[in-house]
């Protein structure tokens, strides 16, 4: 914390001559001069980046990281080398862009995007913040107001070592990197133009916001939807994006959504990210996410299995029957995992349908002979065979 104090002094010392006003776009490869307040801000962000990089929350899968990097480079070849991507395992819709070029893409966003074009739009939006140097404008603006102390305290806390991977820390970073409404609109414009120029279907841009609004409207605690805590109202942005998209489509714009590739690369992570969603216990919100995935893949046994898991874990009135129905549908669909039988067995057992429970567990053991919980499930079968 003492070192942070030194950084603060440096920033404050540098800040006396700075004024709030328009700034030029950052140039590819550019770094701010050391004597500027912008350099001080970059130092903060460098610390945050180091802390985040060593936390346990960063998804390190090479193929997934290469995929997101390719999207960045397709969108913006000029800034490709300046932007470092961190896929952060956090079950909330968000992405952030720091002025020094470190971009966070939260897994909650990747779970909610149903194709590459939707993710590309959000990434393009974040590149817009970077390109337009919104952070330094925001920093100077905050510093010239009474909330500078608050901004500094948040920055210091977020940069502090020890809990870089906590949601509190991630949310603190997000709040530092929040922007004004005008900046958000500008980033929307850049994001939209960038994704359309890269050949992505422009109609996907408003769709990701629409999905988020639907989730917010279903939420029991809409004020706790992280994205909306740091972003202005979205209805107006959706309207603008829709108009822009229709205009481009009328002119024959390319319509590449990249849905299949997105499913192929992101799909293997979907179950664990969905389980992260379940753990939030914000079930109304999560049900919207589930239904959205199901709308895209009605016959996908894996998604139907996760729907069953959702009801089994939520365990509200009627959920037992809903879970059984979902598991049965999963087994009729394509690609249901063997665990579907085990979960079905657990729900049948809870419902007192012991014969069906035993049959389901036996089927699980047949479908997954090397399952690591085999001995436990064998014990379930034995217990169910024992007369009560």
């Amino acid at each position: 914390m003492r070192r942070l104090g030194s950084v603060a002094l440096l920033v404050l010392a540098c800040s006396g001559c700075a004024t709030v006003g328009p700034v030029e776009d950052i140039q590819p490869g550019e770094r701010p001069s050391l004597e500027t307040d912008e350099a001080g801000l970059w130092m903060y962000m460098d610390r945050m980046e180091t802390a985040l990089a060593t936390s346990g929350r960063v998804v390190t899968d090479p193929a997934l990281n290469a995929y997101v990097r390719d999207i960045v480079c397709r969108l913006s070849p000029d800034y490709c080398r300046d932007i470092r991507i961190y896929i952060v395992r956090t079950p909330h819709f968000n992405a952030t862009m720091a002025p020094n070029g470190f971009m966070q893409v939260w897994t909650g966003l990747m779970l909610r995007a149903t194709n590459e074009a939707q993710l590309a739009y959000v990434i393009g939006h974040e590149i817009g913040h970077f390109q337009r140097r919104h952070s330094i404008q925001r920093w100077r603006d905050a510093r010239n107001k009474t909330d500078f102390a608050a901004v500094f305290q948040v920055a210091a806390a977020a940069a502090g070592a020890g809990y870089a991977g906590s949601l509190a820390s991630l949310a603190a970073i997000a709040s530092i990197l929040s922007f004004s409404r005008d900046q958000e609109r500008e980033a929307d414009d850049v994001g939209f133009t960038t994704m359309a120029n890269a050949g992505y279907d422009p109609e996907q841009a408003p769709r990701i916001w629409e999905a988020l609004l639907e989730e917010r409207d279903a939420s029991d605690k809409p004020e706790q939807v992280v994205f909306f805590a740091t972003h202005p109202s979205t209805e107006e942005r959706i309207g603008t994006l829709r108009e822009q998209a229709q205009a481009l489509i009328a002119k024959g714009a390319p319509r590449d959504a990249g849905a299949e590739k997105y499913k192929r690369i992101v799909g293997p992570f979907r179950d664990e990210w969905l389980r992260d969603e379940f753990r939030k216990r914000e079930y109304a919100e999560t049900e919207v996410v589930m239904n959205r995935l199901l709308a895209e893949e009605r016959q996908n046994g894996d998604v139907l299995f996760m729907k069953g898991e959702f009801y089994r874990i939520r365990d509200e009135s009627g959920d037992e029957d809903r879970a059984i129905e979902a598991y049965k549908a999963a087994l009729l669909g394509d690609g249901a995992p063997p665990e579907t039988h085990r979960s079905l067995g657990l729900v049948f057992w809870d419902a007192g349908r012991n014969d069906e429970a035993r049959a389901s567990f036996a089927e699980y053991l047949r479908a997954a002979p090397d399952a690591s919980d085999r001995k436990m499930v064998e014990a379930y079968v034995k217990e169910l065979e024992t007369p009560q």
Partner: protein
Amino acid sequence: MKNIMAIAVLATGLSGCALPYFEPLEPTRVEVAGSYTVDPQIKWSRGKTQHVEIWTVDGPLLESVRFFDARADGDPLLVPGPDQTLPTFKKDMRASEVQEFVVDTLSASGASRVEASNLRPWDFGVLSGFRFELSYVNQDGLEYDAFAVGAISEEKLYLILYAGTRRYYYPKYRGFAEAIVASIQPAA
């Protein structure tokens, strides 16, 4: 901060404010969790927070045995922080669901990449119980291994967790932890 407090109690001891006062524990059979006795095997430092008794030699950040008080229907494994929602135990849970409950509690408390494996029947003293292995990463990126043993009796969950840093500390005391959980006997 809420997440940090919970994870500190459960597994890593990141936050000083959540750590109890520790006192020496001699290697003679002792009652824990108000319901059973175990043989400590070696000298430990013993501390108690709400619902959890912690034994450690080198510090709870490095390795610890955690004895959870019996949890009843509707109880979380840990005391949630302000505005924190933790999963709760349900009296009709099976071993698979208890494993899920522990994994979810760890995850909700800030651990990441929590993986459970090798769930199997295991005798918790005189009770028919279960055991599983765990691995996870704390908020600073430190990797841990752990194992949990437990049983449900009279609609209450009894649970012991041994956790340590994957490098050095988990294997260092694992043998003693195994002997401790093998020594469970009902309290007189």
